[in-house]
């Protein structure tokens, strides 16, 4: 297909490099330097989507980030699908495949438009609001309809083949936007020696200068841009980031920049290159030079393809060599937009009329238009457009000086393009991100950034400064100020200001909504927010229904809630609401934008933190052995812990049964390296332990170990573990695997903020030690073969520890037990861990030494009724509730943490949930963990629940299932029966019993 709208010359495209691309299954051709939007316009593609609610055909209206309609789906393969791409920001490459995201079954021939005629009535303004207010059951009905109709694009069903990454920076001056203001600022700041980052969302620096026909220093502005960029590239402290959108401006001058590194090259990034990169910048000073977006005017049928923003038309002509039509009507409230008509005429196409809403406009551009014989109609407006898939004509009528009403007869003009300009809205989005409220300025008819606590400066269009000469001045001055504030003195010295002619302009008119001969509600639809199909009459309806705050109006109408965040429409909408409420725009409210400025891919957010690198992994020193011996792993915190070690052909239960039996019958071994270990020293260490544990520590001698419970100030258990006295002022505390960091911070908190006078020091030694626990009746015999420590049961007793050598390596051996068997916990320096572990296996073969993982550990401890903090406790359980009053001291002199909490009335009321053992009546039935107990399974719903099962296993050693769980008043209900109704309707019957199922006297560990 020929590029019927392409000019023979001009623009920043390379006509020697044609590129083929696909849109909605058809092949087209564009050029290197095109955006997808300019290439579509060059080919005369008018309809690029269907509107959300009314299913009206829509075309491209803008040329940048503010585009609300041309939001397309990209991707040549399933894996490379990208939704939500603005065609105006996507550079064209050979082989690009795109399609409209809404429109069903296609944008040109849309079945939904018939439904849309109904849908308009089915979905009045306030639809969402009302839908959410009414019974939720209806939402499901609406949702299907909305999703299908809206077609918000789709995510790929296959893994993204590209890589993305992140990079952190610090800089002195971060400049956002490389238009005239940003470039001037960057040049001055760079010359001062400051570290400067200059980012711009476009592929080329220059901003408006890329399509401007103004001159700088007497030569085309683009020359100055090229020279400036060339100089900036030579400064070693300057980082230039094109194709990089500053998407978020966060607290304390932290900015996130989304750089599209290879999106412009191919469907998939070339080998070895990333697709996108997220820059995270902490800036000393920030200069926002983000420019302004032109506002379209709101008039009847202003959404018909062919209606565009005036400056976008100029951009397509001057930058891309594309004239998006043949016959233009320009409607404007200001002088600047006359340039669009001049550009159109220069391109050799017909300007039907310039319709100026002002009664008597005067200015240099107006003079030029008149001199060139263009038809200028003043004091008038385009009140309505004709056409459906393309503009075919307009109705023009005189209006009064305030723009409130039509004052004369309507004339019809035939044309295919309507460009409109209602003035400019400064791009204040980033300054809003940090919470700064914008301020309205009558003189520029727009919002500018308000007060801020950030180290932020602004220059150019964002301040409502639009004349090129002033923009350049302001940019240079602001760049100097930023550099000087960042400590680069004399930055302002010797600035050579680029010079540009001042164009004489007359005042603009504050007009947003064009009146019609009919009242708004009956006039043709006048769209304010294209993406959400919000109309002027919808906003007026909202105010009539009593919504007076702009925030409420926005929620009621969904204005500004699209992926474009209402960049084009919000100010118009506010102006309409204000007028309808008979108040000023600042009285009506302000407009706030939130990150991200434009949509960002999940790939860029994730960066490399996916797949293998999703999270940190911690491995014990023996990990390799576990892998080699077929362990399956369980995540505990960041640790990879062996879960169980299945042999060929074994089911999980087979493996657990074998591991459990081998341990109780001979000897098993567990890698316990992951338990938190905290080294505690200082003359007050012992007293400190007494304050943070619930039990007594005064008499624990050197060489002894003790189990301790830790509570919060509320009296609830939060961690437990064994602490050993290594020397008089030296202890080793162990914590749960998951609680290690939390416990260390807890100890530091109390030491630093409550008891700083105590002399005590904490350090984590978890990673320094490898810990292996051998457990079972043959553990002593096994260890004896490898150690010089006297293992005699009378001298090395249960809850003692000894220093010595194991396998020739210095070791601490703790005789503590989490299985109820004779157990030794061997600790060696971590880098000896694997060696000692393998030595144990060399000697353990004859005892059938069996490795076991966390699951067997759980079963063995549950057979003994030992709790696991965080599994059998949940932050609402006191030591008394656990039946562990033996671990609570009432006669320690200091009121330790948890004591007062446990004394609260509620902790001592009858009928609290208490931990008990549970024996299913059917010994093969394992009650699912989390099951709720009831007294009578036949009671009506909702049943009265007594507590839940916390731990539940099949015990091969006992030959029946075992469980622990909370039961209301459980300690007083031994022997009684409770019922556990299951999701499948069955009921498991269980008897309440002691949680100690095996060896209640503790004889096995005391041999």
């Amino acid at each position, binding site marked *: 297909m020929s590029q019927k709208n392409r000019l023979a010359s001009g623009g920043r495209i390379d006509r020697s490099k044609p590129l083929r691309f696909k849109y909605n299954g058809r092949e087209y051709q564009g050029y290197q330097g095109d955006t997808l939007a300019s290439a579509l316009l060059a080919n005369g593609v008018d309809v690029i989507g269907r509107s959300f609610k009314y299913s009206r055909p829509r075309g491209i209206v803008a040329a940048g980030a503010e585009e609300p309609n041309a939001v397309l789906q990209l991707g040549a393969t399933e894996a490379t699908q990208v939704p939500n791409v603005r065609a105006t920001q996507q550079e064209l490459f050979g082989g690009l495949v795109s399609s409209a995201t809404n429109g069903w079954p296609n944008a040109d021939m849309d079945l939904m438009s018939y439904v849309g005629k109904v849908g308009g009535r089915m979905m009045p303004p306030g639809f969402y609001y009302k839908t959410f207010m009414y019974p939720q059951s209806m939402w499901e009905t609406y949702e299907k309809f909305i999703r299908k109709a809206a077609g918000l694009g789709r995510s790929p069903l296959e893994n993204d083949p590209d890589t993305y990454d992140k990079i952190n920076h610090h800089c002195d001056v971060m400049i956002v936007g490389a238009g005239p203001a940003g470039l001037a600022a960057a040049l001055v700041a760079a010359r001062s020696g400051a570290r400067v980052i200059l980012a711009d969302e476009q592929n080329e620096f220059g901003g408006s200068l890329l399509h401007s026909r103004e001159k700088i220093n007497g030569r085309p502005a683009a020359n100055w841009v090229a020279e400036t960029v060339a100089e900036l590239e030579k400064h070693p402290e300057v980082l230039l980031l094109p194709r990089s959108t500053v998407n978020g401006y966060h607290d304390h001058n932290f900015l996130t920049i989304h750089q599209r590194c290879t999106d412009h090259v191919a469907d998939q990034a070339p080998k070895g290159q990333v697709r996108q990169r997220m820059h995270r910048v902490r800036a000393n000073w920030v200069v926002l030079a983000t420019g302004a977006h032109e506002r379209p005017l709101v008039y009847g049928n202003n959404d018909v393809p062919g209606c565009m923003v005036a400056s976008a038309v100029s951009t397509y002509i001057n930058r891309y060599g594309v004239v998006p039509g043949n016959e233009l009507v320009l409607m404007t409230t200001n002088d600047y937009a006359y340039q669009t008509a001049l550009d159109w005429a220069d391109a050799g196409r017909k300007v039907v009329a310039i319709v100026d809403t002002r009664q008597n406009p005067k200015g240099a551009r107006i003079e030029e238009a008149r001199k060139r014989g263009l038809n200028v109609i003043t004091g008038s407006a385009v009140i309505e457009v004709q056409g459906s898939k393309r503009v075919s004509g307009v109705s023009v009528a005189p209006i009064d000086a305030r723009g409130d009403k039509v004052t004369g007869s309507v004339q019809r003009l035939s044309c295919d393009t309507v460009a409109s300009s209602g003035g400019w809205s400064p791009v204040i989005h980033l300054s809003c991100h940090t919470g700064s409220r914008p301020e309205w300025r009558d003189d520029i008819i727009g919002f500018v950034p308000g007060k801020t606590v950030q180290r932020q400066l602004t220059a150019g269009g964002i301040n409502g400064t639009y004349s090129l000469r002033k923009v350049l001045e302001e940019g240079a001055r602001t760049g100097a100020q930023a550099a000087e504030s960042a400590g680069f003195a004399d930055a302002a010295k010797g600035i050579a200001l680029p010079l540009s002619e001042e164009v004489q302009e007359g005042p603009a008119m504050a007009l947003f909504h064009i009146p019609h001969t009919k009242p708004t509600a009956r006039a043709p639809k006048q769209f304010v927010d294209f993406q959400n199909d919000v109309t002027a009459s919808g906003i007026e309806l909202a105010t009539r229904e009593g919504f007076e705050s702009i925030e409420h109006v926005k929620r009621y109408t969904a204005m500004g809630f699209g992926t474009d965040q209402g960049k084009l429409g919000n100010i118009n909408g506010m102006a309409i609401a204000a007028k309808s409420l008979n108040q000023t725009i600042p009285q009506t409210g302000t407009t706030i934008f939130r990150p991200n400025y434009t949509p960002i891919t999940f790939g860029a957010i994730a960066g490399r933190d996916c797949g293998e690198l999703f999270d940190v992994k911690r491995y014990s020193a023996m990990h390799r052995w576990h892998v080699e011996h077929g362990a399956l792993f369980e995540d505990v915190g960041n640790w990879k812990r062996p879960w169980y070690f299945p042999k060929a052909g074994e089911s999980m239960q087979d493996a657990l049964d074998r591991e459990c039996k081998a341990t109780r019958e001979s000897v098993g071994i567990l890698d316990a390296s992951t338990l938190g270990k905290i080294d505690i020293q200082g003359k007050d260490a012992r007293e400190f332990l007494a304050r943070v544990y619930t039990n007594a520590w005064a008499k624990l001698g050197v060489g002894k170990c003790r189990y301790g419970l830790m509570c919060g100030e*509320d009296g609830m258990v939060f961690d437990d573990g064994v602490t050993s006295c290594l020397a008089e002022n030296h202890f080793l505390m162990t914590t749960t695997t998951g609680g290690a960091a939390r416990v260390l911070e807890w100890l530091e908190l109390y030491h630093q903020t409550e008891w700083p006078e105590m002399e005590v020091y904490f350090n984590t030694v978890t990673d320094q030690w490898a810990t292996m626990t051998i457990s079972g009746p043959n553990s002593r015999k096994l260890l004896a073969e490898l150690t010089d420590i006297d293992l005699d049961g009378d001298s090395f007793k249960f809850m003692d520890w000894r220093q010595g050598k194991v396998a020739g390596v210095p070791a601490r051996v703790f005789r503590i037990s989490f299985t109820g068997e004779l157990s030794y916990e061997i600790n060696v320096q971590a880098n000896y861990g694997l060696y000692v572990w393998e030595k144990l296996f060399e000697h353990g073969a004859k005892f059938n030494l069996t490795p076991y993982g966390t699951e067997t550990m759980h079963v063995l401890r549950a057979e003994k009724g030992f709790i696991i903090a965080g599994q059998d406790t949940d932050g609402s359980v006191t030591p008394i509730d656990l039946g562990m009053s033996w671990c609570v001291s009432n006669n320690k002199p200091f009121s330790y943490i948890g004591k007062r909490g446990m004394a609260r009335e509620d902790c001592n009321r009858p009928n609290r949930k208490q931990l008990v053992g549970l024996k299913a009546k059917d010994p093969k039935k394992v009650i699912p963990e989390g099951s709720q107990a009831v007294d009578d399974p036949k009671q009506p719903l909702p049943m009265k629940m007594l507590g839940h099962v916390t731990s539940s296993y099949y015990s091969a050693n006992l030959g029946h299932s075992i469980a622990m769980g909370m039961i209301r008043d459980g300690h007083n209900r031994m022997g009684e029966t409770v019922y556990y109704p299951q999701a499948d309707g069955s009921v498991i019957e269980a008897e309440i019993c002691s949680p100690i199922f095996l060896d209640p006297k503790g004889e096995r560990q005391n041999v």
Partner: protein
Amino acid sequence: MFYIYCPHCGEHREEEEFHAKGQAHIARPADPDSCSDKEWGEYLYFRKNPRGLHHEMWVHAAGCRKFFNVTRDTVSYEIKEVYKIGERPSVVAAGN
């Protein structure tokens, strides 16, 4: 994301290195056992939620592990000062 000056390290570091620990200057009652349930409940659970200046405790968890206090504006998120445990803030809200 905040940029926090650790008064112990003497450097600004990223928020990721710190944990927020809530309202500062909440002293553990000297004699918990003589507190009523109400007093203990207030010590445990009741916290200010001001719009404006807030004195709060932070810990340099992934750095020096030291606790310190921050005076922060909860509206603008501006950090007005940092000071060590045991010191008093110099920036305080009117009426405090």
